[in-house]
């Protein structure tokens, strides 16, 4: 978890520094106008939970990627669709790949490019339980929220450090003796994206 803390701290600084610098000279609108899209990559930490599993479940660390496209509604709100994936990660013999597709809304509370995000959608997880092959694929539902900062580097591009928390549930994974019931998971993601306005 130390690695998470370090990355979070660095990203926080990366996001906060330009925010402070731009406070006085921020142009009227630094937000997406019309259609926008973005790609991003970073790091995710996944912690599963299930019925009777207890709190101390291992954390699966993995690279993560996200692609999003959307359209702004007014100057403060942008809607979009977001597809995310956390690549294979294994611990204690359990291999995990998680992905999601979600409708998403970004809110820009002020003139600054800082935004908060909320999304709802569907999730898919591929899990290979210890000693079980092939892997199990389960679909479920997911909710996420997060924040980011569109740091403009060009009229049409911005570097966007972001952080998010994704919660999802997939139900039971019943595979031989290694069955798990009411499986859900939390994913904490940190990364940097390229936003195209």
């Amino acid at each position, binding site marked *: 978890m130390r690695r998470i803390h370090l990355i979070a701290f660095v990203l926080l600084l990366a996001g906060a520094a330009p925010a402070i610098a731009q406070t006085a000279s921020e142009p009227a609108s630094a937000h997406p106008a019309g259609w926008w899209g973005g790609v991003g990559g970073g790091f995710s930490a996944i912690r599963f939970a299930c019925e009777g599993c207890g709190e101390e479940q291992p954390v699966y660390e993995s690279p993560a990627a996200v692609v999003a496209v959307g359209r702004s509604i007014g100057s403060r709100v942008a809607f979009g669709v977001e597809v995310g994936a956390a690549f294979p990660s294994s611990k204690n013999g359990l291999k995990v790949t998680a992905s999601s597709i979600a409708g998403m*809304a970004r809110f820009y509370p002020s003139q600054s490019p800082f935004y908060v995000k909320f999304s*709802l959608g569907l999730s898919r997880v591929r899990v290979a339980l210890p000693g079980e092959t092939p892997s199990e694929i389960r679909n479920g539902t997911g909710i996420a*929220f997060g924040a980011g900062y569109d740091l403009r580097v060009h009229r049409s591009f911005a570097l966007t450090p972001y952080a998010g928390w994704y919660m999802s549930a997939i139900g039971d994974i019943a595979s031989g003796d290694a069955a798990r019931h009411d499986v859900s998971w939390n994913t904490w993601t940190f990364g940097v994206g390229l936003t195209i306005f």
Partner: protein
Amino acid sequence: MNPKSPGIRRLIRSCQVFGLLLALTPVGVSAQQVVVPAAAAAAPLPGADPPLEPIPTAAEQAAPAVAVRIPDYQSPGCPGCPKRSWGKAFIGTFGTNVAFNILNLTFRPDSRDEFKITPETWWSNLKYGYIFDDNNFQVNQFGHPYQGGMYFNAGRANGLNYWESAAMSAMGSFTWECCGETHRGSMNDFYSTTMGGMVLGEVFHRMAGLVRDNMATSGRTTKELIATAVDPVGGLTRLFNGEWGEVKANPPDQRPDSLGMSAQIGAIWRGAAGTLDQAKAYPYLALDLAYGDPIKTPAGKPFDAFQAQFVLGGGKGFSEFVVNGRLWGKALDDTPTSATRLQLTQGFLFLSNPAYDVGGQSVGMGVAYSKSLGSQTSLYLYGSGQFMPLAAISAEHVEVNERTYDYGPTAGASGLLAIRHQQESVLRLFYNSTYLKAVNGSGGNHAVQMFQALGSWPLSRRLSAGALVSFFVRNSFYEINPDTFTKYPESRVFLGVRF
């Protein structure tokens, strides 16, 4: 319809009564404390329209009005709106959480440990993440959305618009789950508080707006108190901002261009095992509110047209709350005698009766069609598809403390046909089919269908009499346990009053 007309004024007075009834809904000091007595009733699923929707005239249909953007904050376009303040919205949201925590510590001595929060409990909840909780249906599907509405209205009362206030709802919900209680955060609560809070908050905000009158110089305190009972955070914010006594203009869109309200009083018979043979009669009171008109009201802001139905009795103290509001709309076709509209909607569903519980927050897309069949008669058709990221439904094989229901995403479709005469639905047929995949609970999948037929006839200008029959069918498929097939018929007779 002129908002200043005697008819509208009478409706607004009626809304004060409606607001008081809503305010008296048994919501305790927190969502955890919502206790609703046992038993039930069935109602239209999201997509159904209320029976009292005004008929658009041919002239109105031929020339659809265009929405005028009115700001939600004090500005030249809206001098009577509240001053815009994100800071006060944050304070109102966090203040709500602090108030809930203190009230629980004070009035729930048996559960005090759940609310003795420390930085250690905050970190623990953040570190281990959110899970599903085991609270009862009323707490999770009504209590938490109600609480979310309070966060939402901390935004609305401080000049934030619908979407901006949604961020308050999400933030208040997240911070309550992580840091307002000691036990682990709940992802189903986070979802229902946020999404349900948006719907309930906006409905209560708009209902309170029907009661408030910034220009009133007499009876002002009474109006503000009633509005505060409906929208507590909004009312308190106005009190702290000195708006209770300030005489100024009302927001131009504080009242809708059309407003319909009715009440039904009658009896419900709800059967089990597919028959009404052994059914007992339960009295009930239903209140319907048609705010704006999905055909006639221009699509400007979210929820400038919505329908709400609230049912007391029918086997439980509080058995139904169904809301369906328009987020966005577009005119597809207009002729002198008909109109077609495409609309994106957001809904709230709470059905809780002795036979079954169903609840959730939906997003839907539908097409509404209205055609004049004569000077006083019209046809209304509505077809829609809905998605609920996380709905709740009672199911077998779920017994986790207070929980007897599954959680899962749903996809569904609805169809509605209504014949209206003298602004009253004399015939209404409704069908909904929904599929739920459980992601927490029994592990089953549920195919749910509801059919409903209503017949009503005006006895006078304000009175009507009618009957309703409905069937609620649930087919549940389990991986380990046997599949189940359940059918709940229901019938109602009622006397209706239109305000």
